[in-house]
C-alpha cells in the first residue's frame, strides 16, 4: 500500500508530530521508498521461527526486593519542568 500524504498525516497524529505541510509530500515519498525497500523481508519463509525481542537468552531473572529507597535528588529532577504549579507539573487542560 503506497504511503501518501493522508497516511503521513494519520501516523503523525498518532505520534503527536506536527509535520510542516510543505514537507508532507517529501516524508511520504521517503517513507514509501523505505517501506518499498523493506518489502524484501516478505520473501523470506519465517514459518515456525520464534521472534527475537531480546538477545539476552539465559539471563537470570532480575527482580528487585520490595524496599523503599527514596530518590535523593528529587528537587533537581523537577527543576527542568517547563511549567509548574507549586509541586505539580502544569499543562494545558486535557480535553
Amino acid at each position, binding site marked *: 500500500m503506497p504511503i501518501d500524504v493522508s497516511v503521513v498525516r494519520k501516523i503523525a497524529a498518532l505520534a503527536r508530530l506536527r509535520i510542516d505541510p510543505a514537507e508532507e509530500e517529501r516524508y511520504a515519498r521517503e517513507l514509501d521508498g523505505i517501506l518499498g525497500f523493506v518489502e524484501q523481508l516478505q520473501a523470506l519463509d519465517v514459518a515456525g521461527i520464534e521472534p527475537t525481542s531480546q538477545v539476552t537468552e539465559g539471563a537470570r531473572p532480575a527482580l*528487585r526486593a520490595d524496599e523503599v529507597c527514596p530518590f535523593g535528588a528529587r528537587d533537581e529532577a523537577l527543576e527542568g519542568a517547563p511549567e509548574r504549579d507549586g509541586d505539580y507539573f502544569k499543562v494545558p487542560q486535557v480535553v
Partner: protein
Amino acid sequence: MTKYATATDEMRAKYEPVIGLEVHAQLKTKTKIFCACATTFGAAPNSQVCPVCLGLPGVLPVLNERAVTFAAMTGLAVGATIHPRSIFARKNYFYPDLSKGYQISQYDRPLCEGGGVEIHVEEVRKRIGLVRIHLEEDAGKSLHPEGKEGVSTTRVDLNRAGVPLIEIVSEPDIRSGVEAYHYLTKLKQILVYLDVCDGNMEEGSLRCDANVSVRPCGRVAFGTKTEIKNLNSFRYVEKAIAYEIDRQIALIESGGRVVQETLLWDSARGVAETMRSKEEAHDYRYFPEPDLPPIDLDPSWVESLRASLPELPDALRERLVREQGIPEYDAEVLTETRALASYYEEVAARSGQPKLASNWIMTEVNAVRNKTGDSIESFPVRADRLGDLVAMVANGRVSGKIAKQLFEMMLTDSSGPEALVQKHGLLPIEDDAALRALALEVLAANPGPTAEFRAGKEKTFAFLVGQAMKQSRGRAHPEKLQAALRAVLTEESA
C-alpha cells in the same frame, strides 16, 4: 438528546444481558512496580518520584518481586493457570500523567489465565469465569482546576505513576447489576483475605469498568457492547449496569441499534453519557517490552506459594459449617473477613457454643460495629470475654436479658462478665426461699391474673413469669422461678 422509551418487564424478558467486568486492583507493595519509590497514599504531590517513574531520559524499569508474588497469589486463589513465562508489553499512548508516553503492561503473554470466582445471589451459587490476570503499572493523576483567567490547565502529580496494578478481566458471564455487585464484593474479599489489596473503590485501590451488551434470549452471538467508566462504588456499578441494560433494551425495542462506545457514569443524575468523542480510536501499538526480561517462574516456587496461601473465604466458610455445625448463612456472614472468622472461632471455642456464639456476633457485635464503624480488630469486646459471656448464657448463669446488659457494659469495661456480675450485683437469684418469696410477692401484687390462672387460664402464667422477672430485674433463674411460681400457685389453690 433523544429520549428513549423505557424498558418494561415484558421487554426485559426477551433479552439476556451479557456483562464482563475489568477490575484494576492496586497491589499493597511498599514500592512501585518498576522503581523503589514509596507507594504511600496521600503524600505531597510529586514527592514519591524518581527518574524512572518520571520518565526521564536514560532510565530503565526494574521489576518488584513482591508485585509478581502478589499477582501470582491472586491467580492461585482464583484457580487460574499461572504461566511459567510471561512477558511485559508496551501500550503506547499520550497523556500527561503517563510519563513515558507508554504504559508497561502485559498483552499476549499475561501472568495468569482462566480461573473463576463463585458468587452467591439469592440462594443460587454461580461461577463467574475469568479470562486473565496481568500486571501493569498505574498512571499518575491529572487534576483539573479551573484557571484564574478562564484558561484551563491540568495539574499532574506522578506519585501514583508506577504503583503496581493487577488487571482482572472476567468472562462475560455476569447477567445483571446485582450479580456484578456480588462479583465485586467476592473479588474484594479474596484480595483482602490475601492481603494483596485494600479493595477500596472510593479511594481508588479498586477500580472497575463494565462492558455491557444484550442479546435476544437463545441467541449465541453477542450484541454490540458499550463500556462504562467512572464507577466509584460497588453500588454505582450495580446501578449503572442496570441502567445500561434497560437503555439498550429500550433502544433496540424502539428500532434503534446499540453503538459501540465508551460511556461515563454520572452518579448524580443516574445516567451513563457518551464521553466526548475522540478524534481517533486508540491504536496502542503493543509490542514486547525490550527493557524487561520475561518473568520466569520456577514451578516449585509457584507450588510453595500455593501451599502458603491463607485459607480463602469459600474454604473457610465450608470448614466452619463442617466443624462448627452452623448454617451456611451464618458462616457466610462470619467469614466476611479473616479477622472476623478468627474472632468467631475463638468465641465458639471459649464458650463451647458454636451456634450461640454465631448469633451473638451476627446480632449484638455487628449491630455495634455497624453503628461505630469499628473493624473487628479494634472491637472493644475481646473474643475470650465474649466467649465467657456466651457460656454464661448457655449454662443459665445469667438470663439473656442480663447478658445483654453485661454486653453493653463490656463495650466500655474490659473486665470479664463474671467480674461485672459480681461488681454490679447481677447475680442470679437461685435460692429456693428467695424465689418462693418473690413468687408470693408477685401473686400478691397481681390478684386478678392470679385468680384467672387458678380459674384455668393457663396463658396468664407467662404474664406472671414476666412480672416476676421484671421484679427481679432479670436476675431470677428462669427455670427455677417458673418452678417456684407454679408451686406457689398450685399449693394455694385449694
